[in-house]
């Protein structure tokens, strides 16, 4: 309501000011050339100054004086002729109507179509002071707090999984790293960091991620999650035997009805092992809710491959459109290499090097992955 009163007042003020010129006594319009005359008089004065200072000689000054004089006479003559014209009084019915109606009509119509009169201002400070149940605001509040107290490890620890779940992977990585730096490593933080890294590399277990998982495993050898990713890392690197060893360790240590068993068994099978006495699958079959979970979590081998492939292809497509992304190229080359698609990997490497000819990172990666690129190899 207050808003509408203010808007109405604003409109009325504008219309009132615009109507003012019509309300004043209408004086006659003169073909006012006084300004012009003044300009020419000033030019004459300037000419005199120049002459006095010897900037121009007498002959030139005379020519110029004559020229300006002609203009002066013309302007003055026209001015007088104009001023003799009889003043006319005019009626401005139509004009005043337009001036009065235009602001409210145009203003209202357009504003109602475009504006949000019902929406109040929402300065961030006020919202943070009273966040209610808004998770995003609570996160923002925690971020504020951490920006001022960057060494509050508990805060980072709290935020990191929230970031991870909302797919703010960069922030999640930073938060995990800060929590580890301040509070020291523990299996949950390390595994969380590892998972974040894997997620931000499109499912590839990178060096960094593997290091985090291995450290977590050292602290808590019984943690199946860390061990699973370490195994996955071996699998992606094509080291089937070591991968299988990890998966089998998990299978041995886990209760047979653990929800991750089906996934683990799949990986054991994929790495050339045999699943021990089928107890996991039997249990899984016997338990429908677990089967559902497994179906959701574990796609078939082909589907999974297709999904990873899809992610990599979409990355390739993104890079084609915006090639100025070194990190992206590194990831793409690595992904193709891990998937075993050597020609594609080399092609990506070549494109990446074309974009970043001096990138040591790409060349190093090529060496590591055993990729050959003509002309660029060091």
């Amino acid at each position: 309501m207050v808003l509408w009163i203010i808007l109405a007042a604003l409109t009325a003020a504008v219309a009132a000011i615009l109507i003012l010129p019509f309300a004043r006594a209408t004086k006659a319009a003169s073909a006012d050339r006084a300004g012009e005359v003044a300009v020419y008089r000033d030019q004459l004065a300037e000419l005199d100054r120049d002459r006095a200072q010897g900037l121009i000689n007498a002959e030139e000054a005379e020519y110029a004086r004559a020229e300006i004089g002609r203009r002066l006479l013309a302007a003055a003559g026209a001015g007088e002729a104009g001023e003799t014209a009889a003043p006319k009084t005019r009626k401005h019915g139509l004009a005043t109507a337009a001036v009065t109606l235009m602001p409210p009509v145009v203003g209202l119509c357009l504003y109602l179509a475009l504006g949000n009169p019902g929406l109040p201002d929402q300065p961030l400070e006020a919202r943070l002071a009273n966040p209610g149940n808004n998770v995003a605001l609570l996160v923002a509040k925690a971020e504020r707090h951490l920006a001022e107290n960057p060494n509050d490890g508990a805060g980072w620890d709290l935020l990191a999984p929230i970031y991870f779940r909302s797919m703010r992977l960069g922030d999640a990585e930073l938060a995990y790293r800060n929590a580890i730096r301040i509070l020291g490593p523990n299996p949950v933080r390390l595994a969380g960091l590892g998972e974040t890294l894997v997620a931000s590399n499109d499912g590839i277990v990178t060096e960094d991620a593997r290091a985090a998982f291995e450290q977590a495993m050292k602290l808590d050898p019984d943690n199946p999650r860390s061990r699973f990713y370490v195994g996955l890392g071996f699998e992606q690197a094509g080291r089937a035997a070591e991968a299988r060893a990890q998966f089998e360790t998990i299978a041995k240590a886990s209760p047979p009805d653990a929800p991750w068993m089906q996934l683990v068994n799949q990986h054991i099978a994929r790495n050339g092992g045999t699943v021990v006495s089928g107890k996991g699958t039997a249990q899984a079959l016997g338990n429908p809710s677990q089967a559902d979970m497994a179906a959701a979590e574990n796609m078939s081998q082909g589907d999974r491959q297709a999904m990873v492939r899809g992610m990599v292809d979409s990355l390739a497509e993104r890079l084609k459109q915006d090639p100025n992304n070194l990190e992206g190229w590194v990831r793409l080359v690595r992904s193709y290499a891990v998937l075993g698609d050597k020609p594609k990997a080399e092609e990506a490497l070549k494109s990446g090097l074309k974009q970043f000819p001096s990138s040591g990172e790409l060349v190093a990666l090529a060496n590591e992955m055993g990729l050959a690129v003509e002309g660029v190899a060091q």
Partner: protein
Amino acid sequence: MIIEIGHYALVLALATALILSVLPVIGARRGDAAMMALAPTGSLVLFALVTLSFGALTWAYVVSDFSVANVWENSHSLMPLIYKYSGVWGNHEGSMLLWLLILVFFSALVAVFGGNLPDTLRANVLAVQAWISTAFLLFILLTSNPFLRLDPAPAEGQDLNPVLQDFGLAVHPPLLYLGYVGFSVCFSFAVAALIEGRIDAAWARWVRPWTLAAWTFLTAGIAMGSYWAYYELGWGGWWFWDPVENASFMPWLAGTALLHSALVMEKREALKIWTVLLAIMTFSLSLLGTFLVRSGVLTSVHSFATDPTRGIFILCILAIFIGGAFVLFAWRAPMLKAGGIFAPISREGALVLNNLILTVATATVLTGTLYPLILETLTGEKISVGAPFFNMTFGLLMLPLLVAVPFGPVLAWKRGDLLGALQRLWVFAGLSMFAGLAFFYIQNGGPVLAIFGLALGFWGMIGALADLWYRGNFAKVGFSVGVKRLIGLPRSVFGTAIAHFGLGVTVLGIFAATTFGTETVVEMKQGASVDVGGYSLTYDGLRDAVGPNYTESRGHFAVSRGGVEVADVWSSKRLYTARRMPTTEAGILTFGLSQLYVSLGDAMEGGGMVVRIWWKPFILCIWGGALVMMAGGFVSLSDRRLRVGAPSRKAKPVKARLEAAE
């Protein structure tokens, strides 16, 4: 509520602009004083409304109100306060609002300071300004509305583009827009004169301060943009002939031509039609520049957003204003009384030469900018027209102009004496050549042709001083009388000399920096040293640091000369966390007018870093010269003659105009 008031004020501004577009023109046609008086009143109302609107948006940025979509897209609550202010125009919608604000600001200035104009001319000029305002208001409200809201509001913004998080953003766009938009006043004067069908020497006098102000701001804006690109992008270059740069350079070239042709018109009533055409062309190029950058035709840091409806709207605005103005010109120009004639060797002749070269240069830049775009649209073939083309064409065109600059001011109006001018100037030409040689010798090395380039720079500077020398007649009357004579001269004479001097400084900087500059790319490990430009840089390793909204690793370099440490410099690579966007922050050390420019490349295996180091001798002359040109513009603007023409009113104090123009 404040935001909605701002939104409504913008809508109300459209209503006001519509009224202003029509009634004053009718009033001028019918000789109706009341309707004409509406123009200045309405222009002030318009300015007040747009200011209110702009203020509301700024407030939304400052308090981080993310219920405004524009704020959410381009701000972050943790950004330093200055970027919250400058972030208002660091995006498409906000920058269009700034454009509009400056446009109505100039209209308001014309309304306030236009007391010396004939009533009809003032009414028409302000009406034409209102046409442009209407177009921009429609464009902003319908396609680029900064006041659209989000409900529910997000908790945190998406941050401003890191490249724009810089002091440069606070200065460059407002200055550039003051220049671009300032030329709208010249355009409006030209169109108003065409509508009235009358134009004379006094018109040129009235347009002059506006041209001068716009030119001055544009000079500063371009120089600022160039310096910003130089230190922010980390490429070590200061001008890339990038289409976006060209877009701002073309109005400058045309505006420079306009500045000079208006002089001829004022003094001799010649070149009237040409001046009107130039005024139209200059603003058309400003519009083209604004929109070329905004339409998404060009991709660069400046094209904040692309959207097909905007593109079509933009095309329509361009077609209506540029096309309309040229049609009006073709129709009305033949009816204007032609001006006087003059001899080729005269001040007028020199100014015509200036105009000729500058317009051809503008056409060259325009061709080089648009040709790749047109070719791509027609055939799909992508080519890039870069520095070699512009250096060969534009560079060659500029050489005769630079040689001719000092001759202009020493030639007399109407009938000049070239031989006399040569006699007066040959000593100074000799001095310039000597200075060029000496400079070349001290810097030792480089191509011999560079001597002429350096001499050209000195010629511009010394030639400007020579003009003052002869005006003071120091040779005959001695020093003290000479100084007295100089003091008596109108300020515009000093403005000319200062601006021409600045041009010389810039030319000198360009030649010195390109001839004697060096570029070194090395891989450095901690403790490694490299010699550049007589200085020795020692790399001291990387350190991590955290800024308000970014993290960075900073490389530290110790700089020594002759074994003595003289300075140290940090060069860093930043990562802006909200957008996960990396930037490089070059480390720049200034020694006198020269600079050492250090930029970090990629990290190598084994702890080394690729480091690019440029030695840029006398590079500051390039922008310093532009600042001197700007100073010349302001000195000239303070000339009392520009305020002449209001006989019945009290003369306004000098300061008032300057303040208003700033």
